[in-house]
C-alpha cells in the first residue's frame, strides 16, 4: 500500500495568503469578478490523493455524473484556479457507486506542478467531461496493451475493458526506471500476461516496451490488435514495428488542447493525410496513419513559455517556503 501523500503544501506554510501569494496578481478583472462567475457552481472535491511514483500522482475526485457516464478511452479537462490553464487528463478509472473518477498525472510543467500541490480535502475549480470518443471495445481475440511511462494510466482502463469483453490481454508496461513505474498491480489483475520493462534495467525486462513487443512477436505469438499509449517516440516505434506485420495498432494522442470541445483546433493532427481534431475526432486513431513527426513539433510549441511559467511558479513557491528557490 502506498502511503498517502503527506508533503507539506505551500498553503499550509503560508496560511494567511492562500496558495502562492505572489502568483495571485490583482487586476481589474478579479476586482470586478462576482461570486456568480462560475454560474451555479459545482465543486469537485479530491477525496483521495496518492503518490504513485516520482512526480506521478493519483487523485480520486468526486464527480458523480462523469463517473456514471465515462467509458474507457475518454478524458476530462480540469482547472485548478481562476488563472489556470485547462488541463486535459485521461480518466484512469471510475467508481459509479462512489461517484468518483481517478486521475493520474505527472508533474511536468507549471500547471501539473500546481495540481500536484493539491491533495485530499482540496477541490478542483472546474471539471469538464467526459470528452472524446470511447475506445472501441469488442472481442477481438488477443489484444496487446502497451503503456509507456505516464501512458500506462490511459492504457489501464482500456486493458480492463478489453479483459471484461473477453479478450486475452497481453500487457507490456514500461518506464525509464523502476521508481517511475506505475499501476503494475492493477495491470496484473486485468492482463493474462504482463511484461514490465525499464529502460535502464533497474526492474523487470531491461529495454523499451517496443523491444518487449518485438520479442513477443518474434516468438510467433498471435496478436489481433495492439493498443499503444505513451510518449510519441514510443508510439512511433511500436507503430513501425506493427506496420510491417500489418497488425492494427490504436494509439491515443495527447496534443496541446484549449477548449477540448472542437472549438479551437489547437489539437489538430494529420491522420492519413487529413487534419483531424484529437478532442472530438479522437483521442484514438489508427497509429499507422498518424503523422508523429508533426505531432512532436506541435507538442513543443510553447516550450519557452512553459519554462518561464515554471520559473515564476518555482520562484513564488520558493519565496513562500522561506526564500529558497
Amino acid at each position, binding site marked *: 500500500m502506498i502511503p498517502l501523500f503527506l508533503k507539506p503544501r505551500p498553503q499550509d506554510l503560508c496560511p494567511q495568503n492562500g496558495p502562492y501569494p505572489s502568483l495571485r496578481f490583482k487586476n481589474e478583472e478579479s476586482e470586478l469578478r462576482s461570486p456568480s462567475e*462560475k454560474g451555479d457552481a459545482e465543486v469537485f472535491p479530491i477525496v483521495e490523493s496518492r503518490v504513485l511514483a516520482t512526480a506521478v500522482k493519483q487523485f480520486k475526485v468526486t464527480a458523480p455524473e462523469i463517473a456514471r457516464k465515462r467509458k474507457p478511452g475518454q478524458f476530462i479537462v480540469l482547472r485548478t484556479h481562476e*488563472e489556470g*490553464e485547462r488541463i486535459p487528463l485521461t480518466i484512469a478509472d471510475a467508481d459509479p457507486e462512489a461517484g468518483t473518477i481517478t486521475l493520474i498525472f505527472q508533474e511536468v510543467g507549471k500547471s501539473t506542478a500546481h495540481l500536484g500541490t493539491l491533495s485530499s480535502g482540496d477541490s478542483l475549480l472546474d*471539471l469538464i467531461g467526459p470528452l472524446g470518443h470511447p475506445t472501441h471495445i469488442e472481442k477481438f481475440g488477443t489484444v496487446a496493451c502497451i503503456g509507456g511511462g505516464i501512458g500506462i494510466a490511459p492504457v489501464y482502463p482500456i486493458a480492463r475493458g478489453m479483459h471484461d469483453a473477453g479478450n486475452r490481454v497481453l500487457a507490456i508496461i514500461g518506464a525509464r526506471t523502476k521508481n517511475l513505474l506505475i499501476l503494475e498491480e492493477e495491470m496484473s489483475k486485468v492482463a493474462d500476461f504482463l511484461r514490465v520493462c525499464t529502460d535502464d534495467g533497474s526492474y523487470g525486462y531491461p529495454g523499451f516496451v517496443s523491444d518487449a513487443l518485438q520479442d513477443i512477436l518474434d516468438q510467433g505469438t498471435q496478436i489481433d490488435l495492439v493498443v499503444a499509449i505513451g510518449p510519441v517516440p514510443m508510439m512511433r516505434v511500436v507503430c513501425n514495428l506493427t506496420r510491417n506485420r500489418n497488425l492494427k495498432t490504436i494509439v491515443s494522442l495527447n496534443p496541446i488542447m484549449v*477548449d477540448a470541445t472542437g472549438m479551437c*483546433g489547437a489539437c489538430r493532427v494529420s491522420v492519413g493525410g487529413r487534419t483531424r481534431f484529437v478532442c472530438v475526432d479522437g483521442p484514438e486513431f489508427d497509429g499507422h496513419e498518424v503523422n508523429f513527426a508533426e505531432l512532436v513539433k506541435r507538442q513543443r510549441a*510553447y516550450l519557452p513559455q512553459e519554462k518561464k511559467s515554471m520559473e515564476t511558479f518555482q520562484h513564488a513557491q520558493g519565496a513562500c517556503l522561506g526564500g529558497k528557490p
Partner: protein
Amino acid sequence: MAEPPEKKKREAIPRQKMLEQEARARAKNFDEVPFGYNPDLAKLEASRCLQCKKPACVKDCPVSIDIPSFIWMILQNDFLGAARKLKEMNSLPAVCGRVCPQEDQCEKMCVLGKKGEPVAIGRLERFAADYERKHGEFVMPPKASPSGKKVAVVGSGPAGLTVAGDLIKKGHQVTIFEALHKAGGVLVYGIPEFRLPKAIVQAEVDYLQNVGVEIKTNQVIGQISTVDELMAAGYDAAFLGTGAGLPTFMNIPGENLNGVYSANEYLTRSNLMKAYLFPQYDTPIAQGKKVAVLGGGNVAMDSARTAIRLGAEDVYIVYRRSKKELPARIEEVHHAEEEGIQFHFLTLPVQLLGNDEGWVYGMECQKMELGEPDQSGRRRPIPIPGSEFKIDVDLVIVAIGTGANPLIQSTTPDLKTNKWGYIIADPETGATSKKGVYAGGDIVTGSATVILAMGAGRQAADAIHKYLSE
C-alpha cells in the same frame, strides 16, 4: 419637459462622436476603445431624432426595440427609463450597443440618413445601458406566475441568453448548460476586451441569474447528457444555441505548422484564458512580430487588433477580394486602420512555409482580380497566373469562418441537419425536426452576428412559450 429643438436648429446638429482612446496608445492596451457618451452628448444626439410616427428603424431591428421611445426618454433625462424600455425587447443592450452592425439595420433605415447622417442609435443604446449598469439598482422585471414547465437551454451565447431571459419572464423554469467554464459564449471567448469588456457580459449573466435562470457551466451536452437524456430528465423543451463551434481552415499546405492558429483558438487563448496577461495567467499565446490574418470579417479584425496589442510589429489582413467587399463592419475596419493594421487586398495565400522546428516563417500568396458576381452577389476573385509572391510572417491566424460542431447532432439521431451539419430549423419559430426541441443562432445559420442570434432566440422563445402553453 424638454422639447426637441426647432427643426432648423435640429438639422444643424451633427451626429455626435464618442470620445475614444487615441489610436497609438490603445494599440498597446486591452482597454475598451470608445469611452461612450456623457449625458450631455447623449441628450444632444437624442435631440436629433425626429420621433417618426411610423419609425422605419424599428422595422429593421431584429428584436424590434421601440427606438423612438427610448431615445425620447434619454432626451427627458430619464436614462434609467430608457434602459428599461430597451430591456423590454433586448436582454443585452450594453452588448448590442457595442457590437451590433447598426449601420446595416436600424441606422440604415433612419430618415435622417437620407440627406445627412442617421441618429446614432447604437451609441445611445450603449449610453442608456451603461448608465443603468453604473447607477441603477436591480429591479425584478414582471414575471408571469410559475408554469411548472422546465426548459433546457444549451449554450450561453447571445441566442441562449435571450431565450433564457424571455422564458424566465414568462414563468418557466430555465436552466442554461454551458460547455466552457464561463458563461457568455462568443461574447466571452470570441469578442476581445477592447471591444466588449467582459465585466459587461458578466453583468448581463448576473442579471439573468438574479431573475432566476440557473446556469450550469462545464456541461458539454452531447457528452455528459444527450438531448434525449435531458428531455427524459424532465425538461419539457430544449433550445440549442451552441454556436458555430468548429474552426474552418484553408486546406493549404503548412496549416498545421506551429504559429498557425484558427481565429477561435487565438481569441479563446487571449479572451477566455487571458493569455494576454501571461504569465499571471497560465495559458500562453505565441507573440508574432509579423502576423498575417487570413479573412476580412469582424473576427479577422478582432484577431489583427489583438495581435498588435500583443506586441506585433506588422499585422496584415490578407483578403482575397477588395476593400469594398470586406464583410467586417466599417467601424472595425476604420479602427484597425487607425491602429496600423496593413491590408493586402486581392491576395490569396496558397502555401505556408515552415522551418525545421515546424514553425511558420513565410507565406506564399497569389494576386487575384475580380470577375463576375457570384451567388453572394460579390464579385468572384480569380487568380492571376504568374503573380505568386512571398510574405515573411511568423504568425498566421486563419479567420475564414466556422463550421458546425458535431457533438450534439451526432448524438441526436432524429435531429435533422443540412449538408454542412447545421441544424435545420424553421426560420420563423426555430422548431427543429424533433418535438419540443428548438434551435437558433450560428448553429442554424452558420457564422452571423450577435443580434441575429438574439433575434432567433427571441422567435424561438415565443414559439417555445406557445408550445408549452398548449
